[in-house]
């Protein structure tokens, strides 16, 4: 029964690639949207509680339900899955952007202001760099959960490693299911390790503790 694997490698690789796209793109979009929202929320405190509540409510919606809600507009397409997963990524990344920026020691921001940094330069050159570890921690959760949730997209016909679960179940062929599970885990692990490496490269000051 393990012979199924070598005879289907091209299918497995194709599904892995599609799953990777459905996992990584939403996390990146989520990051791009979270940054401005998080910056606003960190600066104007009143902005954050309502946004956080809204984000948490959206996060509570089951992924399949969100896919279905998007189908009338975007159809049974990658776009539907990517939008839904972007929203979920946003939910985990945004709080980390806010916490990362709020975690910058007040003495450091005060010193930056007193040195003559304007607000934008201070944000770009002092606050965001110092928030990187916390932001990337959020991004890691976003990527891993998107890779995992992408397989649910198979239920509305969007191709991913989820195909192996459904096909394996219908054919009562567990090997296919095992391969699907292992590939999802491997994919998540590899992406996570890459993000750890990126974090290390961007934060050399944390290297030697």
């Amino acid at each position, binding site marked *: 029964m393990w012979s199924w694997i070598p005879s289907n490698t091209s299918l497995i690789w194709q599904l892995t690639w599609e799953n990777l796209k459905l996992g990584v793109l939403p996390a990146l979009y989520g990051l791009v949207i979270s940054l401005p929202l998080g910056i606003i929320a960190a600066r104007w405190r009143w902005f954050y509680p309502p946004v956080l509540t809204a984000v948490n409510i959206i996060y509570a919606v089951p992924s399949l339900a969100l896919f279905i809600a998007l189908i009338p507009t975007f159809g049974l397409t990658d776009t539907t899955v990517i939008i839904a997963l972007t929203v979920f990524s946003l939910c985990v990344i945004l709080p980390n952007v806010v916490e990362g920026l709020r975690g910058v*020691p007040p*003495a*450091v921001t*005060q*010193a*930056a*202001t*007193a*040195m*003559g*940094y*304007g607000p934008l*330069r201070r944000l770009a050159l*002092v606050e965001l*760099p*110092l928030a990187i570890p916390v932001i990337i921690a959020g991004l890691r959760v976003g990527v891993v959960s998107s890779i995992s949730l992408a397989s649910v997209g198979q239920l509305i016909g969007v191709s991913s490693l989820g195909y192996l679960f459904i096909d394996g179940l219908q054919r009562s062929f567990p090997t296919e299911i095992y391969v699907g599970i292992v590939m999802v885990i491997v994919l998540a692990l590899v992406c996570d390790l890459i993000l750890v490496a990126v974090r290390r490269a961007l*934060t050399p*000051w944390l290297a*030697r503790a």
Partner: protein
Amino acid sequence: MITFEAVTKRYPDGTVAVDGLDLEVPAGQTMVLVGPSGCGKTTSLRMINRLVEPTEGTILLDGTDIRTRNPAQLRRGIGYVIQQTGLFPHRTVEDNIATVPVLTGWPRKKARDRARELLTLVGLDQDLARRYPHQLSGGQQQRVGVARALAADPPVLLMDEPFSAVDPIVRASLQDELISLQAELRKTIVLVTHDIEEAIKVGDLVALFRPHGTLAQLAPPEELLAAPADDYVAGFVGFDRGIRRLSFVRTTGLALGTGPVLPADATVAKALAAGEPWILVTDPQSGTPRGWADAARLAALPADTPLGQAAAEPLGHTFTVGTDSLRAALDAAVLSPAGLAAGVDDGGRVIGVATFDQLRAAIQAADAADGADGAHGRNGPRQ
């Protein structure tokens, strides 16, 4: 020169942090703002670089109202040092120091060269240039903070409790270095502290605040100790201000006796003939002090015994005549078993000893002169 004209800071909740403050910080001098917490000293400091805006009144920097200046531009010309250092954790020591030069558009290479110069100026090793702040000790971080504030050579330096977070020994050496740096650089410094000892040590002028932001007294440190304006000031400067004030009086005019000073090769008979209760035994070659010999115990020894063989009490400590203050001389007398202060020259050779009576005479003479010799601050005697 920094001028506060009727400056008030009132917060929206009605708290008054600073109340109608008039203050002038002369160019090239160190002004210390001191007082209990909540007295408005830090608020006053932060108004100078517009981190806090006054509710009423005007602050002038060299005659120009600071509200007419762009805040970021203004701040690049004012060095700023704070207790928690506020160093950028993500930048190396040299890049931290180069912050303001880079902001003002220096090429990075030139800014880093300048950073290395400043490392040397604040007494740090060049090897630290590529380290990150968390890899340095608290005292080293504070020095980097001072170097960063000085990097663009601003005429004004603001220091908010700069030495409060380091241990007392490091603090004392940082204070000493600030004093010698300032003697060289002649910046206009405003330093905030809650420590009156620090204020008296580093200040040319001390502005003592009352709670709620009014001035209790503005005076040079020796005047603050000699003539406190009221009970509040007297209480704040402490009960031993009479003795601490002696830090500002030189020992140049102190009368010294040589009667009880004998070299170690002199005999017991000669020591007893001097008629002194205690003999200061010195080295026959170098003239440096060895210790005190008790005449009552010398009397029990054969008359021809050299003093060097007699048991001697430890020296306590000596004072350097002319360099040290009367406070150091008085301390030397208190700690000596003989009750005498041993005065030495710069080479450590004994010049003579002073009795409590002679010390008192010198103190009274200084009071009569009323500080007219102008010996104060960093130009005064070593404290």
